[in-house]
């Protein structure tokens, strides 16, 4: 298989991050891992946005991934991280295949609200599940990977980062190709003009359905990685404000490139971390202003900074 330049640079960046992480303070490694996990969920949101759909319920799959890790460790005795992530993907794909039949018939605000409703129903079920700790959630077991036990502490966080990097790289490489595939372009075509898509002989329903299920699966991976990293899951993961945050980051980054969600998630996390610290009483305001500035001056997201420069260069 021939690798193209974007792919080479993605791999390069991943390797660079992995090396740099060995010399970075632990908190940064941790923050980076969470940002990567978040970016994966955002990637799902971006996939839907490319098809013209905005989901205010992507937290559903994020939460499913997280709880699959928590429950798989607690009740099925699974400790292997890859198996736990796989479990989450399996459950998520099954559920999204059912929900997808319904929600892909909807557009715009109706899609947004319907996805929000399903996410909130999961939230409600988990809040009512007293044995799962209700809103308090519960801790995730110590995990291993292919027999290696990173344990807790510094080695644990570094192992989590490496795992997240490998998974995220694989997904980014896949999506980079996906966006350029017939299916990926069909999604954008649906966003642009559904009438024409239908007259071209493409089934909108089918395209959106596949896209929805893939986006859900990737969201689940993000949730699983978050659970493995943070060591705790709780129903807030399915609450609509968390889904709103994913949409926020997606808009911040833009839908132009697979790397955009990662950069946006990292910037978002760092802005929030410093905002919380410097202005504990006004950090929401800072986030709101940043968002407005982005929309005003970079309507296509942070990524357009890069493409804009390309235009002037050529």
């Amino acid at each position, binding site marked *: 298989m021939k690798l193209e330049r974007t792919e080479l640079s993605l791999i390069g960046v991943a390797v660079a991050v992995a090396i740099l992480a060995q010399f970075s303070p632990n908190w940064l490694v941790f923050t980076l891992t969470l940002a990567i996990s978040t970016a994966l969920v955002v990637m799902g949101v971006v996939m839907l946005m490319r098809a013209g759909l905005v989901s205010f319920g992507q937290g559903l799959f994020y939460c499913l991934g997280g709880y699959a890790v928590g429950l798989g460790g607690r009740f099925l005795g699974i400790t292997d991280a890859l198996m736990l992530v796989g479990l989450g993907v399996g459950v998520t794909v099954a559920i999204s295949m059912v929900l997808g039949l319904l929600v892909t018939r909807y557009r715009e605000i109706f899609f947004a609200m319907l996805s929000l409703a399903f996410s909130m129903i999961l939230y409600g079920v988990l809040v009512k599940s007293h044995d799962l700790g209700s809103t308090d959630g519960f801790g995730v077991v110590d995990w291993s990977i292919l027999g290696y036990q990173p344990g807790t502490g510094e080695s644990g966080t570094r192992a989590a980062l490496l795992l997240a990097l490998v998974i995220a790289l694989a997904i980014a490489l896949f999506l980079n190709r996906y966006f350029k*595939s017939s299916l990926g*372009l069909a999604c954008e075509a649906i966003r642009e*003009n559904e009438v*024409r898509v*239908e*007259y*071209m*002989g493409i089934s909108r329903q089918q395209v959106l359905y596949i896209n929805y299920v893939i986006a859900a699966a990737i969201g689940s991976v993000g949730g699983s990685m978050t659970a493995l990293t943070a060591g705790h899951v709780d129903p807030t993961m399915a609450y609509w404000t968390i889904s709103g945050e994913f949409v926020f980051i997606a808009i911040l980054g833009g839908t132009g490139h697979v790397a955009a969600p990662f950069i946006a998630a990292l910037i978002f996390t760092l802005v929030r971390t410093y905002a919380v610290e410097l202005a504990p009483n006004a950090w929401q305001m800072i986030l709101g202003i940043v968002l407005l500035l982005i929309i005003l001056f970079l309507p296509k997201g942070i990524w357009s900074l890069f493409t804009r420069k390309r235009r002037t260069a050529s």
Partner: protein
Amino acid sequence: MTEILKTEGLSRYFGAVTAAEDINITITEGEIVGVIGSNGAGKTTFINMVTGYLPPSSGTIAFGGAPIKGLGPRKLMRKGLTRSFQIPQLFLELPVIDNLAIALASAEHNQFQMLRPVRTPRRLAAADNILEQMNISQYRDEMVTAMPQGARKLLDIAIAMLGNPKMLLLDEPTSGVSMEEKYTLMDTVMEAVKRRGLTVLFVEHDMEIVQRYVTRVLAFASGVVIKDGPVDEVLADKQVQELVTGKRKKQPETEGDA
């Protein structure tokens, strides 16, 4: 000469309003048929019913001998019936080349190819080819938003042709295009049509265009076909002149009807 499109008793009502009533026509392969009529005469309703955008209230439609009533645009495209639009239906925020590439990919009818890259050398060559035929190669890598109206019309028709149709329906191909460009546009389109040997049904307001490019004309008024025949004969008809081509109606102010 085999018949390709046949409608019997085709009607459509919007509540109490009759948009089209009892339309019986037969079109044979290779014909270039014009559809004329003033605003609200039922032309677009007719086209929309034939292309599956609007379900008929009653009547039958057959394409290539098989009934197609109730089939959606997607199935009709698979059977070889495609259309262009009065307002070009394009992917505005995508490059022109991708507009064509996705149409070509879809025309291959192979689901397992959906995850492969859309820009294959074969498709790019085919897309370049039709861009050349349509004289719009200069927009190849631009977004559709950068194209003028005439070029958009051509791209819209090009996309319809890429679906390998047997029959092509053109909905007012020259509306919104300047007087000077009209003939160049139609020449380009008709040459591409002839090269592909397509049957064409096209709606047009401009009688000079109709006279110049079609062999047969259907004249619509108040939802009914009032005259069907060779172009000179229909345009010379008194009733048609009165209801359709009358001087006051020659250049309608607004385009399109329900």
